[in-house]
């Protein structure tokens, strides 16, 4: 019995032992796309140990994989999937357990490999608050992002209606949004498409491992040499809507045996285009980097890049001008000089960025990264300046026929004969008339020649915004347990930006006098008040004669300091993921005037009033503080914080539900904080942080070539500030509108879907963005003029900012009039809501895509855009503007003045064709041709702005608006790219 038992026990033990010798360890996880977090079906998982293949697996429709029967030890897991950048991950299996990797994300390859930001039409809209940045920069497999991110840029689509500064753009882990304006900084590396191609992108409220982000997505451009596609690559690109030619060369070594990696990228972009005369590029961009992987596995990367050169800018005009010229792409910035086209507005930049990045994995559960980034150089933008001479702009309103005659005689413009002269001047197409229809450089030079004293009446100035920007970012990712991951970091920024202008060209004269001409008109008897540089005047007895290259006008530093700490914890189990994160930070900024302006003399260094010829120059604001142009302003400080919660559930079958919510308390930017930053230290009253609450819900599904995302979003932004500066010729100066307390609400849905069609390689994609982006408050406005100490309006309510009344109209005696009730009061139909401008609230696209096995691709896209609105001018929404000189606001006046213009809808067709050839599997040659706006639709407005001037009616009872200015989309245009790589 005992023997039997023993034998059984021994046998059992042997069995157990034998069973135990079969390894019980393993690894499992879910492979998802880093963009959109959608599962990737069919991804290959290859497990290597000491260079030998150990096991393979393929992910299921839900992206999940499982490899079992692994012995304890360290493995290298290689993940690959079509359309994604391959990744290597180290895995340690121990204790005989199946290691749950949870979510493993892959970086999508740029699907349309040859499309880049340089194909986005760039505008000159500096003065109206626009930027020249692309709308969305997705490189992802998210269907919506793919079709909208690139395809909607020609209409200036703003994702979910948000301004570009709400999109967080990182480079190597450092947030790059401009310290002064918050704008996204794509122009810093434009032209370096190859070096900057690899990026992590999130959409909407998703967070990432380099920061918590806001509510409009995050992009982190990797930039380090190993992120650049290895090999040689050359391309030639021609673009008929922007610049003629781009030549690019790129090389990356990949990681060499000695642990080093090198990469460089250079490109030249030159020439004009078919649509906008005067717009041209003369740019060289370069990138160079080196990276070393140490034995410890840590990496150190150093790279530097810059985009340097000239770019001619475009200008908006009124519809009257476009009609007179028969061309909606007319650009008033250029004219002939000696028969050669010359643009007066040219952006000239050289802003090198240098980055040092260190990454390490001290343990297999901890990744750390540290980056130091420095940006410097200069950014100039030329413009014409003139003193006591006629406005040189050809489309200046007094040159237009409408200035002489309008059908409605209430405009007090009744000279039909002068109208005829002005019309002939614009309508005649001959060389003799070019000097009227475009800038007349020859005339400007001749005015300067005429000045016996050599004083230039016209000059070309160059406005500079020169940044010195030092950043430090540290971040860590800790896989605390198999279910919990913690990301966090700290970052800091020190920025000093010098704003000034200098003389770029004296246009045939000897010098330009550094005085303020409007002040001169107002303060004729007090020369000191007209000085742009009072200290120079008091020392030398006269204003400085500025020669080429000399600074004049204004000169000040913007100082910005930022510090932030952030953390985000992600817990996941069985397809359920929850993350909670937060930030806390402090931002501070101040102005430091470098010159003393006569009008805002302030106190001298000893704290005494400044006087000239017995008259005190120092003036005080209503709180008794001296109004100062020189020295440091009050230092403004803001505590910032934010919190985010994300919940996601991944069901079997590739369905994913997620919900994100966040609250953000952000500091205002420097650019919006001063009433007239060019001239004085005065801060806008009532400056406070911007509060945003945002939420979105998402459903995603991906399986067997089907791909779908539906998102609903809702965002409320409170207490925004905005400073708008516009040139007013009647003041011969910039007029500033400082708005505080702007509230907005953005709500809508986003849909993106892709389905395969029965024919192999054929698929259909569609996207829809449909929302309402409206103002929900009436802000306060402080209006100042650069050249006057007078505050035109101080914290005045803008009563018609968020909406304007719509009255009931009836036809009576052949006239359309507002109906009144029996008491004589106008009958109200409702209110027109006022919208965030210059983006369509309804944007859709349907795209038919065909790819062959021989690497051809064809794509035909139809797009429809509607509900886009014109940018509003606060002046037209004041009581004063709707009242007219008589001070009586009638329903007709309110409706006329305060209504916001809605653009007509637009339908567009685009076509893309491409083909790649592989030679001996080593050389790859290909082309892509992109034809935009196939229907040659030339009436599509992409943006614009209202002017800030009023016309008093003949009877002085009301005001009329000046015509608005618009930007149009170019007609049919192409972009052809040829590339060769090996």
């Amino acid at each position: 019995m005992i023997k039997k038992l023993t034998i059984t026990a021994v046998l059992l033990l042997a069995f157990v032992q034998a069973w135990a010798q079969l390894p019980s360890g393993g690894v499992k996880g879910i492979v998802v796309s880093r963009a959109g977090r959608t599962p990737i079906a069919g991804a290959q998982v290859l497990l290597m140990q000491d260079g030998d293949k150990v096991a393979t697996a393929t992910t299921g429709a839900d992206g999940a994989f499982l490899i079992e029967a692994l012995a304890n030890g360290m493995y290298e897991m290689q993940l690959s999937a079509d359309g994604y950048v391959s990744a290597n991950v180290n895995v340690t299996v121990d204790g005989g357990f199946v290691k749950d990797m949870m979510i493993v994300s892959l970086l999508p390859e740029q699907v349309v490999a040859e499309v880049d930001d340089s194909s986005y039409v760039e505008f000159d809209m500096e003065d109206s608050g626009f930027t020249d940045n692309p709308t969305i920069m997705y490189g992802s497999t998210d269907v919506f992002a793919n079709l909208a991110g690139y395809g909607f840029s020609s209409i200036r689509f703003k994702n979910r209606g948000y301004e570009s500064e709400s999109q967080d753009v990182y480079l190597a882990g450092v947030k790059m949004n401009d310290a002064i304006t918050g704008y996204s900084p794509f122009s810093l590396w434009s032209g370096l498409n190859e070096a900057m191609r690899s990026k992590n992108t999130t959409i909407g409220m998703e967070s990432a491992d380099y920061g918590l982000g806001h509510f409009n997505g995050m992009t982190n451009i990797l930039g380090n040499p190993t992120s650049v596609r290895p090999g040689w690559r050359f391309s030639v690109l021609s673009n008929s809507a922007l610049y003629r030619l781009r030549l690019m060369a790129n090389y990356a070594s990949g990681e060499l045996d000695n642990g080093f990696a090198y990469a460089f990228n250079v490109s030249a972009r030159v020439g004009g285009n078919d649509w906008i005369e005067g717009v041209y590029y003369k740019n060289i961009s370069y990138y160079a980097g080196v990276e070393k992987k140490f034995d410890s596995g840590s990496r150190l990367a150093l790279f530097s890049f810059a985009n340097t050169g000239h770019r001619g800018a475009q200008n908006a005009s009124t519809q009257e001008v476009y009609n007179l010229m028969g061309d909606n792409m007319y650009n008033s910035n250029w004219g002939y000089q000696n028969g050669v086209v010359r643009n007066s507005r040219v952006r000239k930049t050289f802003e090198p960025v240098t980055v040092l990045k260190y990454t390490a994995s001290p343990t297999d559960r901890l990744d750390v990264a540290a980056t130091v980034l420095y940006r410097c150089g200069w950014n100039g933008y030329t413009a014409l300046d003139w003193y006591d001479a006629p406005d040189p702009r050809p489309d200046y309103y007094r040159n237009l026929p409408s200035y002489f005659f309008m059908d409605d005689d209430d405009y007090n413009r009744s000279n039909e004969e002068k109208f005829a002269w002005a019309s002939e001047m614009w309508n005649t197409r001959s060389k003799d008339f070019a000097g009227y229809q475009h800038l007349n450089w020859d005339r400007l030079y001749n005015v300067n020649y005429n000045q016996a004293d050599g004083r230039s009446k016209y000059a070309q100035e160059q406005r500079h915004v020169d940044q010195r920007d030092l950043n430090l970012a540290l971040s860590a990712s800790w896989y605390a347990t198999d279910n919990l991951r913690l990301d966090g970091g700290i970052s800091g920024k020190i920025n000093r930006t010098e704003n000034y202008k200098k003389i770029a060209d004296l246009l045939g004269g000897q010098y330009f006098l550094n005085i303020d001409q409007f002040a001169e008109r107002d303060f004729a008897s007090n020369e000191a008040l007209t000085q742009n540089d009072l200290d120079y005047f008091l020392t030398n007895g006269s204003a400085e004669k500025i020669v080429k290259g000399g600074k004049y006008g204004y000169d000040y530093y913007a100082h910005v300091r930022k510090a932030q700490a952030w953390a985000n914890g992600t817990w996941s189990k069985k397809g359920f993921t929850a993350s909670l994160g937060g930030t806390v930070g402090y931002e501070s900024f101040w102005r430091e005037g470098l010159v003393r302006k006569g009008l805002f003399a302030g106190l001298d260094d000893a704290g005494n009033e400044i006087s000239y010829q017995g008259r005190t120059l120092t003036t005080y604001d209503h709180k008794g503080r001296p109004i100062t142009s020189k020295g440091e302003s009050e230092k403004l400080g803001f505590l910032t914080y934010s919190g985010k919660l994300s919940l996601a559930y991944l069901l079997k079958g590739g369905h994913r539900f997620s919900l994100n919510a966040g609250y953000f308390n952000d500091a205002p930017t420097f650019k919006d904080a001063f009433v007239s930053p060019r001239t004085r230290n005065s801060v806008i009253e009532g400056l406070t942080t911007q509060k945003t609450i945002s939420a979105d819900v998402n459903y995603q599904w991906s399986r067997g070539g089907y791909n779908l995302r539906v998102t609903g979003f809702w965002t409320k932004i409170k207490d925004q500030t905005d400073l708008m500066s516009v040139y007013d010729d009647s003041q011969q100066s910039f007029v500033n509108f400082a708005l505080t307390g702007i509230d907005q609400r953005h709500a809508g849905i986003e849909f993106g879907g892709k389905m395969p069609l029965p024919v192999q390689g054929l698929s259909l994609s569609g996207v829809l963005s449909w929302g309402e982006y409206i103002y929900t408050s009436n802000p306060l406005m402080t209006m100042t003029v650069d050249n006057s100490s007078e505050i035109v309006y101080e914290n005045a309510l803008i009563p018609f900012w968020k909406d304007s009344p719509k009255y009931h109209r009836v036809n009576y005696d052949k006239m359309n009039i507002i109906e009144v009730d029996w008491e004589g009061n106008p009958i109200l139909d409702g209110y027109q809501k006022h919208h965030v401008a210059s983006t369509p609230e309804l944007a859709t696209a349907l795209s038919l895509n065909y790819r062959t096995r021989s690497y051809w691709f064809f794509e035909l896209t139809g797009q429809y855009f509607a509900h886009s609105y014109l940018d509003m001018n606060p002046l037209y929404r004041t009581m004063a503007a709707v009242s007219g000189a008589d001070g009586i606001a009638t329903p007709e006046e309110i409706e006329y003045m305060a209504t916001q213009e809605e653009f007509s809808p637009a339908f567009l067709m685009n076509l893309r064709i491409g083909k790649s050839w592989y030679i001996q599997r080593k050389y790859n040659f290909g082309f892509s041709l992109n034809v935009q706006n196939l229907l040659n639709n030339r009436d599509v407005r992409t943006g614009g702005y209202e002017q800030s001037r009023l016309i008093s009616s003949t009877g002085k009872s009301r005001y009329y608006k000046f015509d608005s200015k618009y930007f149009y989309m170019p007609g049919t245009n192409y972009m052809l790219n040829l590339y060769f790589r090996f």
Partner: protein
Amino acid sequence: MKKILSILTLAALLASCTSLIEEFQPVFTSKYEDPAVSKTVSLKPNITIADLCALYKTGSPWQIDRDLIIAGRVTTTDKPGNFYKSLYIQDETGGIELKLGKNGLYNYYQEGQMVYVRCFGLTLGMYGYKSGNYGGQGMVQLGYIDPTESYETAYLESSYLIDSHVFAGEKGEKVVPEVITESQLPQTYDTQASNPYIGKLVTLKGLKYANQIFCMLYIDSNKEKKMSANRIFLSDATWGVTTWAMSENKFKEYFDAGLWDSVQIGNSGDYNYGTVGQPKDPGFAMSKADIRAHAAAYSVSQYFTMGSREIQLRTSGYSKFGDEEIPKSVLDGTATVDMTGILSLYQGSIQFTVNSLEDIVINE
């Protein structure tokens, strides 16, 4: 056939090449050469300024329907801002104002420079005529048709209109002013056709300050200027004004000093709107602050006498010397002044406008 095809192919290739070359035309971005100095124009005048003015009949603006060309040298400059949007030219026979309607005219037409005017299509009209006992002639001017009939002539304004009629000739030395005596001064009903000095640059000597100004202020210049309730007249005395004119800032200084508080608002004979110190018209002003809120620059006529004749020296509030103080010795009558400027008539009264303060010489 094959030949034709190959020729066609060649032609097509060539055409696409040229269009390609055109497409890839480089943009010029190198150093731009300085443009050449504009050539001056020379025309042969066929009528004198006095004869042209003689073609004008008082009260009837005339759109010139003949190819008349006048020539004259520029006598004024808008550089110091006392002349605005127009300039005077003169020949041997007389002077005339050209209402061009642009700022900074001195940049194109300089003092002493020859200017030719092709008059066809322009309008000859008069400014400042008033009928009746206290009236008289104004100035014959050359401008453009004014369909509103607010004035007899309008400004030309349109660049193309100006460039088609007014031509800058060769530059020259500044015109030497003629010194004229009291007896040469025009009478109430003279015009350029009957008095050779009207519209010309002349020097008047030995003028005495007359302790009197004329200045019309508006409560709100954005509102209807013809309304009596919008007007304030400073006349018959000096009202404390000791500058040649007043900028907006100078206006505020005078205003705040309370010098005009007792002045009645409104046209003479229509004093129903209170005083500057206490206005009482809800449509325009109910308090002194309401008037100050619309402060502006104003022209002032300072009265002088030349023998028995009265000369109004008119200076713009936008001129750079408008806020300069009139020397004490002039104000208290111990010094006389010599002035060089444009002699003009307004409702039969003599007005005088100087280019700059250098044209006023104090005889201490």
